[in-house]
């Protein structure tokens, strides 16, 4: 709502203007950042990096300087402990370090899979001997009752994805919505507001809608023009509706708030709640249920 108030003011202030400014922010020691995942049926993986000074630009050569390479990373799933191996990865043509996955170092076959109901313990020891840890549970999946597409009034072919959810009658369920258009998106993408919990809807059956997510700072034509945030007639949409644990929910609730606040004078700048001990970021668990919508 605060963003909304901000919009109101801006709308009224025809004389407002903005300019680029340079700020001299204090330098602080970089901290280790965890971007870790356990997903049903997939080997767990972790991307490790370091935080950097706020205005340092990132050029092609510089990306790897933020990557946290050479760390000792293990995951315990209640039965066994496996070490995650660091892979040489190429992302969009750029080689990237700091990507660790639960694969065999020789065969490259998975050594562990995400299983619903298990609790995973992550332990990291970096090259400079910093220790980080986290624990997260892979929740049982909760499927949506139904999903559909509806054109927005006044808009010819564009609209939102809709779903009906019946929340189980036990408080504490947390969710994240993501979706992908076949042939148009490489990944499942989440719009702002994708993370929610059942605090106010416990045990109820209700309808909700979702905008279309995009890659951050995307410059694709359908992300910057009138199609931005909307699905279109003819899209085949795969919905990945995930049950997540509380740590994942809290991280994304705060991160989405921070992203949408971005300097708003109506918000107090605040840090994102992390479930990592000794570092930043999140060790996330995703338990998905899939649906397909043919938009027509």
């Amino acid at each position, binding site marked *: 709502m605060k963003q909304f108030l901000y919009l109101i003011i801006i709308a009224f202030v025809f004389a407002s203007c903005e300019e680029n400014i340079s700020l001299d922010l*204090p330098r602080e020691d970089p901290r280790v950042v965890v971007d870790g995942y356990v*997903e049903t049926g997939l080997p767990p993986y972790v991307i490790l990096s*370091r935080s950097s000074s*706020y205005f340092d630009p990132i050029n*092609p050569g510089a990306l790897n300087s933020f990557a946290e390479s050479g760390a000792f990373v293990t995951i315990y799933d209640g039965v066994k402990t496996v070490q995650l191996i660091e892979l040489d990865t190429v992302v969009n043509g750029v080689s990237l370090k700091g990507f660790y996955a639960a694969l065999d170092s020789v065969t490259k076959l998975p050594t562990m899979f995400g299983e619903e109901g298990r609790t995973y313990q992550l332990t990291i020891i970096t090259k400079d001997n910093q220790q980080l840890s986290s624990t997260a549970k892979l929740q049982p999946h909760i499927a949506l009752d139904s999903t559909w597409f509806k054109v927005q009034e006044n808009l010819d072919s564009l609209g939102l994805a809709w779903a009906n959810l019946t929340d189980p009658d036990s408080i504490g369920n947390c969710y994240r919505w993501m979706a992908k258009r076949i042939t148009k998106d*490489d990944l499942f993408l989440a719009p702002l507001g994708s993370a929610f919990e059942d605090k106010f809807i416990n045990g109820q059956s209700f309808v909700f809608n979702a905008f279309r997510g995009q890659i951050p700072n995307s410059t694709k034509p359908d992300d910057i023009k009138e199609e931005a945030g909307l699905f279109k007639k003819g899209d085949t949409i795969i919905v990945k509706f995930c049950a997540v644990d509380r740590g994942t929910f809290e991280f994304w609730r705060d991160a989405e*708030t921070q992203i949408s606040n*971005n300097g708003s004078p*109506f918000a107090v700048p605040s840090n994102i709640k992390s479930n990592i001990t000794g570092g930043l970021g999140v060790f996330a668990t995703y338990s998905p249920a899939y649906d397909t919508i043919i938009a027509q």
Partner: protein
Amino acid sequence: MKKLIALFVLHFLLFNQIVLAQAPTPSKVTVSGYISDASTGERMIGAAVYFKEIEKAVSCNAYGFYSMSVAPGTYTIVFSYVGFVTNEAKYTLTKSQSINIELKPRVIETQEVIVSAQKQERNIQSTEMSKIEVGIDQIKALPALMGEVDVLKAIQLLPGVKSAGEGNSGFYVRGGGPDQNLILLDEAVVYNASHLFGFFSVFNSDAIKNVSLTKGGMPAQYGGRLSSVLDISMKDGNNKEVHGEGGIGYIASRFTLEGPIVKDKASFIVSGRRTFIDLFLREPFVPANSRIAGNSYYFYDLNGKINYTISNKDRLYLSCYLGKDVFNFRSPETGFKVKIPWGNATAAFRWNHLFNEKLFVNNSLIFTNYNFEFGAAQQQFDFKIFSGIRDYSLKSDFNWYPTVLHNVKFGMNYIYHRFTPTNVSARSGDVQFDLGEVKRYYAHDLAVYVNDDWEIDDQWKVSGGLRFSMFEHVGPFTRYIQDPLNTNNIIDSVSYKTGDKVKMYAKVEPRFNVRYQINNRSSIKASFTQNYQYIHLASFGSVSLPTDVWVPSTDKVKPQFSTQYALGYFKNLKKNTFETSVEVYYKTMENLIEYREGVTPDQDVKNNADNNFVFGKGDSYGAEFFIKKNQGKLTGWVGYTLSYTNRQFAEINYGKEFPAKYDRRHDCSIVLNYQKSKKWTFGAVWVYSTGDALTLPSQKYFASTTPPVSVGANGEINLNNNFNVLSLYQARNSFRQKAYHRLDISATYHGKKHKHYEGSWVFSIYNVYSRKNPYFIYFNVDGNSVDGNLSVQAKQVSLFGLIPSVTYNFKF
């Protein structure tokens, strides 16, 4: 509650004692009465009565009443008020008598601007320090944003008072927060004093008589806030003849009508103001099917007052205020609709009674209400937030003038509060979300006080007072108990029935001012005051907004408490043409509240807001320099403040002390008025202040928005670019925005005066050199990390460049 009733009884017993003790002493006679404006009948607040032979003076109270006891004899009594013809006459006083005086407005070749409505040496002679009165005429002569004369913006030009900047409703006095200012309109508390998120104040200048601000050394009759009292008096209404005035401005128009109901006995005033931009956002200007149809904003204010003089001893007043902002928004793309109405209503019924020539009382019955609502709908979703505060209060304020050396004020004030902190309701189609029951807090708030202004000798004068305040939070109330390990979990609740005591506080607040008069032209003053504040404004944002909610002191929230020491040197120069002062102050504040870091508004739902508060302390110190020129063609003032304001909360900023957002090292204002001729008046205001303290991210880091791995056709694992840039904040308020400065000018052209009509044009320019003052800073992220072209650019948004405006004002 029984205790409260007992206190009431005690209070009235005490008052009876005093009434009974009023047998006049034969060695003294008392002169008392009212001073009013001969042209309108308006009672004159602060007009001076001076007894030449004994060199003693007294000034009128807020109802234009004065009283002075002297030995029988013949005296030259001078009645004066700046801008009015002084009335001087000899009186032979053999017994107590009433002298009511009407002063005529002074008509001179070039009309003199009234800078202050006080007796010229009052700033030297009174014990009051840290108090400033600004005449409404002076405020009207200042350049104003879009031509809307603004009382709140004018007082922010005084030293020690800081503007929160454009687009912010609060003001800050000596390092205190915006909730620490008591804003009174004819005795009624106004909780939200601005329109359009702070761009304009709710006070319509045409309906206002007088404005006074006390920023330190608060006398005992005021309480309930730590920092300041802004006391605004509405006009009573002309009791001689019917008059109207109004104006057509850039964004709003005004109209006021006043006149006698029964000549010299009863009068009325009604005054209205409304913006009109919304009238152009509908048919026929905007077709109903247009994209912008359905969007609108307006605000209005209505002031009304009637008074009736029953006799020389009794007078009744009824004053009302109603103001509202309404915002409508609709987006055809998303089907999103919003309606936000909010506003204040106040009503005060007052009865002035004169028991005898030495004892005056004003009894008030006051109602005040503030409501905020936010309703949003999108498709089958409905979402509503509402909050507010409603008070019923009863006040008795006595002025007792036992001898020429004493001026005693005593009284009591009782308020019954009903707080409605943020309540939310939401539904999707037929499904109602479970957002808990409507939460309310109820509280009794009682204070009794006594204050004596005692002139010990020609040099020494003291003003000492005690205020005894009690606050009781009562049921119905549900206390939710959080799991100490996970504050998200409510593990239990305790219910209180209607009237049950939840928590009670009883406190004593000493107030002390002393003056040492060096000579007729200079004095030194010092003050020591302690204040308690039982109500608190909880804000999620870093600026104050209508969405902020008032909450009472509870078992969890202790009353805010402050101690202030101030010392000042006051000197008048060139026959009172210049008033100068230097004041230094030191203030400590305890039990300040903030939301815990990272708390989001949803965490208040099905919970007590105060479960999410953290508590801390603050201090503030500084020096204020003030030079004011009262007379001549050129009038105005220069004020400069050097100050420091810090906060410390165990759970914020790792427990380390940090500067308050509005900690401003330097704050300066220059205000000038030049009366060139009968036709032309010019005004200029220049303000400068150190930039706000701000929390900015020190580092950035990455997290993929969604799982970034995809499995390729051959089973290979692909990592995709889906990185978000996130911010890491370290020290709170460790960064400074650029300094704020701005020049505004105005020119007023007074048209030819007709017998029954006069008009004037006000031309003003806001921000003459179009300074780009910072409003907020945001960060623009371009490119992405994997393509290697990611860059972060800080951008500063400024609100107003140069804004010219024209207003036409008329009177008949």
